[in-house]
């Protein structure tokens, strides 16, 4: 399948926390691109730098090196009009649907507000219709939910509202940071299906951030594996999962719960956890191509 031109890209972006004499690379030389109608999954353990990447995209952090490209143009040089377009084109869905909604306001308010701000031309009646449409799109009953408050909703319903709110401004890119990790399995699939629908029906570009590789495979065509701020392996989902090449990817995959493998069939990597972790955290500047769409940064 040929990919459309990327809508958003990170180009060799680094983000460093901590002091100069003891720098912590939350992002090291990170490059990736998001394409319309495709989902890219970012997987990795706690502290690997996933949320940092999301914050860089949301412009909550500025890169210490490298740049963001929006439709091919560097964002650093963008004027205020272009920045405004960027802000409404790129929306985020958070892990905790409760804390990202305001308990004092109704569901209608949460969805009406972005419409008022970003689509000024809409009349009151048009906005009302748009709110109904958004709720229908995320498979919620408008009549039933419009007047409710966040605490009156289940976790799954709340996460649907966050998604509807992100959709309210007609975005082109959605960054979803662990959108299902606080939800019970029984409602997780509904949210994943919704992400897939948005990608297919609205042609959105999605960045799906997770530590759950099985759900990543369900929603994404491409995957990248983060460790210590670096993308150590990336490419086509099936290629990476079927033939993992970086020792850290292999370690991660051998530890992921998999009903097809008993514990006794443990991979070799599980005996070398410390070594793999230590070496994978070192800078790995070289890039090696494994297959047409499959790359690793070999350990030094």
């Amino acid at each position: 399948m040929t990919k459309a031109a990327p809508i958003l890209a990170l180009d060799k972006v680094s983000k460093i926390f901590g002091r100069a004499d003891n720098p912590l690379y939350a992002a090291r030389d990170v490059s990736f691109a998001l394409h319309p109608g495709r989902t890219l999954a970012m997987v990795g353990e706690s502290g690997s730098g996933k949320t940092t990447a999301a914050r860089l995209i949301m412009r909550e952090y500025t890169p210490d090196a490298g740049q963001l490209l929006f439709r091919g143009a560097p964002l650093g040089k963008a004027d205020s009009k272009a920045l405004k377009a960027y802000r409404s084109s790129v929306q985020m869905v958070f892990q905790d649907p409760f804390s990202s909604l305001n308990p004092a306001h109704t569901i209608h308010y949460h969805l009406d507000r972005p419409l008022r701000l970003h689509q000024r031309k809409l009349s009151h009646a048009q906005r009302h219709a748009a709110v109904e449409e958004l709720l229908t799109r995320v498979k919620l009953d408008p009549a039933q939910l419009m007047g409710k408050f966040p605490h009156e909703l289940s976790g799954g319903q709340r996460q649907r509202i966050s998604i509807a709110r992100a959709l309210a401004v007609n975005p082109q890119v959605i960054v979803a940071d662990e959108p299902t990790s606080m939800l019970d399995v029984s409602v997780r699939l509904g949210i994943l299906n919704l992400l897939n629908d948005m990608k297919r029906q609205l042609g959105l570009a999605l960045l799906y951030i997770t530590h759950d590789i099985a759900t990543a495979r369900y929603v994404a065509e491409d995957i990248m594996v983060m460790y210590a701020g670096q993308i150590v392996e990336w490419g086509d989902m099936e290629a990476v999962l079927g033939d993992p090449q970086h020792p850290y990817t292999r370690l991660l995959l051998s530890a992921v719960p998999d009903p097809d493998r008993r514990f006794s069939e443990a991979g070799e990597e599980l005996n070398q956890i410390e070594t793999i972790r230590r070496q994978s955290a070192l800078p790995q500047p070289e890039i090696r191509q494994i297959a047409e769409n499959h790359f690793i940064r070999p350990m030094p």
Partner: protein
Amino acid sequence: MTNPVLSVRNLNIDYIGAETDFHAVKNVSFDIAPGELFGLAGRSGCGKSTIAFAVSRLHRPPALIRKGSQILVDGRDVLTLDDAELRKFRWREVAMVFQSAMNSLNPVLTIEDQFHDVLRTHTGMSRAAARERAAELLKLVDISPDRLSAYPHQCSGGMRQRIVIAICLALNPKLLIMDEPTTALDVVVQREILQRIDVLRRQLGFSVLFITHDLSLMVQVSDRIGIMLEGELVEVNDSRTIYRAPQHAYTRKLWASMPRLHGVQITGEVAP
């Protein structure tokens, strides 16, 4: 099952409310054999922790176990134990690791003191003997004995969780209950811990009641699994059957809602 370590019979538990009571566990019966790792799975709120607390006799009001319920450990009904018997029962017969156990260590005591606390209270062991036993227990969970002088905040979450497990094993319990012991941890750390438990229960012979919402993980590590739905145990089978040939419609539904890591992907049509 002949001579099970745990035998739960017709267990009914209510949460007593001001107006109405909530029947949280409904007529549940199952056995766990010596050395067996038994998993209890089901969606949030189905009653897993309520059972775990009852078995370890840690349930508190408003939880009320109905008359006629039986929980036998090594043939003895734990629901009839008096206070003195209960003190002997805890840690020695049944020990429990909670989801947030890694935060349950006392922050002002060293690791050594935490072991000493349990060992002194229950066996009257001297400090020197307790120290030796603690070092031995730490080694079981892959932690170097030089950590004995550390405080909890100096240990990672995974390490603290392993320390709690080691303390639970201090008095050689017959049954270890683990309620979502690794949910807050990363997969690699989770795997290290459960792999260790799997080795230890074979080596030391204790049984495990393992509770998690992660059915894939449960299939990997358990011998047999019970599936719960709204307070009822709807299927009990060996883990291979639960995975390959689930008997109850709800078990099939659970699998149908779980994305696969390999092979044919689920269709996504049967969201429960």
